[in-house]
C-alpha cells in the first residue's frame, strides 16, 4: 500500500503540531504535570545518547561501551563553563577554582558545543589506537577508557577544575522547549548522517569489513569518524543531562550508565533511530514513573502482596531486558524505521492477526 507523499507530509505535520501543543500544555501546567515534563526531558536526553550509541553499535558495528565516559566529559565541560561566576566560590568550597577558568562563563549553546567538542577531541585521540581492536576487545577497551575518564575527574589532582570528589552544582537549567528542541536537532542531524553517503559507508563496515575495504572505504578513517561523531553527541547528551540534573558528580557516570543506555538501544532495536528514541522515552517513563508502584507495598483486597517492595522494579526491569535479548532480539523496531505506511499497515493488520492468533489457539486446543 502506498500513501501519497502529501498525505504523509500532512500526517507528519499534524503529529509535530500535536507534540508542540502537548509540550506547551505540559509546560504551562508544570506543577500538575511535573513528572511528565521531567520524564519527557530525561527521555529525550537519553534518546540523544542512545542514538549516538546506536550510530556506533547498530550502524557501524563497533561494539563500544564508552558512552558514559564521553557523557561525563561533556557534562563536566558544560558545567564548568556555565556555573554562574558569583556562585563558583561556594561550589568549589574546598579548594577553590582554577584562576584561569574561574572568570570564563560561556552562553549555554556555546558551552554545549564545547561539551561536544571536548568529548569528540578525546575520542579522536583514543580512537586511533583503540579502533584497531576487534569486537569484544574494543568493548572492554572503551569501557576501560570510560572508567579512566571517571577516575581522572574524581582525582584530587583535578580539584580546582572538576572539584574532584565534591561534584558540581548550581548548573543553570533551561526550559523544556530548549532541552527537547536541542535533543530533536541532535537526533535529526544523526539521522541525516546515517542516511547520507557516509552513513551507507558505516553500514557497509558493519556488514562486512573486508568487502567495505575492497569498495574503497578507508576502514580506520570511517570508524574514527563514526567514533568521533558518536562521542560528540554523547558529549552534548552529557551536557544536556547536566543541564537537566543541575548538579553532577563523577559517580553519575558509572558503568551502569552505559549499561542503561545499551539497554535502551537493545530494546529499541540495534540499527533503528526511531527505535532508540521510542525506547528511550518508554524505558525512562516506565522506570522512573509508571513502574514505581512495584517498589511500593501493594495491597489487593486487604492482602499484602509480599513481592512488592523496594528493588522489585529493577528486578522486573532486568527480567524484561533478558526477555528482549533472548526472545525479541530485534527489539521494538529491529533495523527498520518508523513510517506512516508501516503504522497504518500495522493497524490495519491487527484484526487479521488477532483472529489468526485466536485460530492458532483454537487449533492447539483441539
Amino acid at each position, binding site marked *: 500500500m502506498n500513501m501519497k507523499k502529501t498525505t504523509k507530509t500532512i500526517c507528519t505535520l499534524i503529529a509535530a503540531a500535536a507534540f508542540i501543543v502537548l509540550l506547551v500544555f505540559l509546560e504551562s501546567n508544570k506543577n500538575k504535570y511535573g513528572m511528565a515534563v521531567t520524564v519527557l526531558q530525561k527521555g529525550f536526553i537519553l534518546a540523544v545518547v542512545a542514538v549516538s550509541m546506536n550510530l556506533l553499535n547498530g550502524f557501524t558495528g563497533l561494539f563500544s561501551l564508552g558512552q558514559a565516559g564521553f557523557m561525563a566529559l561533556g557534562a563536566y565541560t558544560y558545567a564548568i563553563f556555565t556555573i554562574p561566576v558569583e556562585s563558583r566560590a561556594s561550589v568549589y568550597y574546598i579548594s577553590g577554582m582554577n584562576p584561569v577558568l574561574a572568570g570564563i562563563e560561556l552562553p549555554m549553546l556555546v558551552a554545549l558545543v564545547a561539551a561536544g567538542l571536548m568529548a569528540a577531541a578525546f575520542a579522536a585521540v583514543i580512537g586511533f589506537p583503540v579502533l584497531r581492536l576487534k569486537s569484544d576487545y574494543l568493548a572492554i577497551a572503551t569501557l576501560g577508557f570510560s572508567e579512566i575518564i571517571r577516575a581522572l575527574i574524581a582525582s584530587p589532582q583535578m580539584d580546582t577544575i572538576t572539584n574532584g570528589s565534591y561534584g558540581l552544582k548550581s548548573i543553570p537549567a533551561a526550559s523544556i522547549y530548549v532541552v527537547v528542541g536541542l535533543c530533536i536537532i541532535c537526533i535529526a*542531524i544523526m539521522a541525516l548522517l546515517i542516511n547520507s*553517503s557516509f552513513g551507507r559507508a558505516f*553500514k557497509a563496515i558493519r556488514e562486512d569489513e573486508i568487502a567495505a*575495504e*575492497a569498495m*574503497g*572505504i578507508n*576502514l580506520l578513517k570511517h570508524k574514527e*569518524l563514526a567514533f568521533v561523531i558518536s562521542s560528540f553527541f554523547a558529549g552534548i547528551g552529557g551536557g544536556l543531562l547536566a543541564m537537566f540534573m543541575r548538579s553532577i558528580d563523577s559517580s553519575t557516570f558509572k558503568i551502569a550508565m552505559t549499561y542503561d543506555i545499551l539497554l535502551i538501544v537493545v530494546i529499541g532495536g540495534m540499527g533503528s533511530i526511531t527505535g532508540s528514541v521510542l525506547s528511550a522515552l518508554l524505558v525512562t517513563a516506565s522506570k522512573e514513573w509508571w513502574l514505581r508502584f512495584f517498589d511500593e507495598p501493594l495491597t489487593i483486597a486487604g492482602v499484602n502482596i509480599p513481592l512488592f517492595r523496594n528493588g522489585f522494579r529493577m528486578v522486573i526491569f532486568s527480567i524484561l531486558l533478558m526477555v528482549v535479548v533472548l526472545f525479541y532480539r530485534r527489539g521494538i523496531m529491529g533495523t527498520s524505521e518508523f513510517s506512516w505506511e508501516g503504522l497504518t499497515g500495522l493497524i490495519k493488520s491487527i484484526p487479521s492477526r488477532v483472529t489468526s492468533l485466536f485460530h492458532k489457539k483454537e487449533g492447539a486446543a483441539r
Partner: protein
Amino acid sequence: MSKTILKAEDITMQFGGVVAVNNFSMEVHEGEIVALIGPNGAGKTTAFNVITGVYAPTNGAVYFDEQMIISNYPQGKMKKMYAGENEGKYTKKIEKTPDQITKLGVARTFQNIRLFKSLTVFDNVLIAKHMRSKANVFSATFRLNAKEEKKNREETRKLLEIVGLLDVQNEIASSLPYGKQRHLEIARALATEPKLLLLDEPAAGMNPQETDELTAFIKRVKEQFGLTVFMIEHHMDLVMEISDRIYVLDFGKPIASGTPDEIQNNKRVIEAYLGVPEDE
C-alpha cells in the same frame, strides 16, 4: 603491444616456515583477460590477496599502472627464516591498503561472496560510489552534495540496468539467488569505476548453465566498460574460452604461462593436474 597495467615481481609469501607462493612474477596488459590457474592449494588465492593488498608479501613488489603499489622484504624474525629467492632485491616497504588500491582503479570480487547482506541491492552498488564522492561528512550530512548524490543514484540505476538487476533493486541482497549474487558482486565492483577487475573464482559453485551465462556476462562488461580482467578460476571451460593468456601455479611456484592452446599442451601443466605418470 599495449601497455602493462598490472605487474607482479618476484612475489614470495611465507607463513611461518611454509612458503605459500614462491617467486611468482606476471604481467597483465591493458585490455586482456588473464587467468591464474593451478590445482587446489597451489597458492592462487594467496597470490591474489597479495596483489589486492590484503596480505603484505614477504618479498617482492607489485606495480599498477607503472606505479609501485606494494613492496616488501624479509624483516625481523622473517629475516632468519626466509626460504625464498631474490633476497635483498627489494629494500622498500610500501603497503597500500585495499581501499587505496581500489581507489587507484583495481576492483575485486571474493571467492565466497561478500555482499552487504542485509542492505538492498541498490545500496550495495551505491556504497561503491562513496569512494569517489567529493563530499565531506558535513556537506554529506547537511545535503550540500545533493547534485552529486543524485548523479550517483542515476549512475547506479544505469549500472543495475546494464547488469540486469534493476528489477530486484529493492530486494535485500542476501535474498537473491546465488547466481544473481555473483552478478551483483561484479556490478558492485564495477561501480568503483575500475580499470582492472580481479575476479576470485567467479564461477565457484555454479552449474554449467550459470557458468555459461557468467562467461557471456564477463565478456560483455569487459567490452562495455573497457576493462582489463585478471581472474582465478577452476572451471577450465570458462578459462579456456575467455582468457587471452594463462599463468599456472603449482606448489606456490609458477610452472607455465602462455595462451590457452599453449597451456593445454604443456607437459608440466598436465603433470601438475593429473600427476606424474609412473614408470610405464
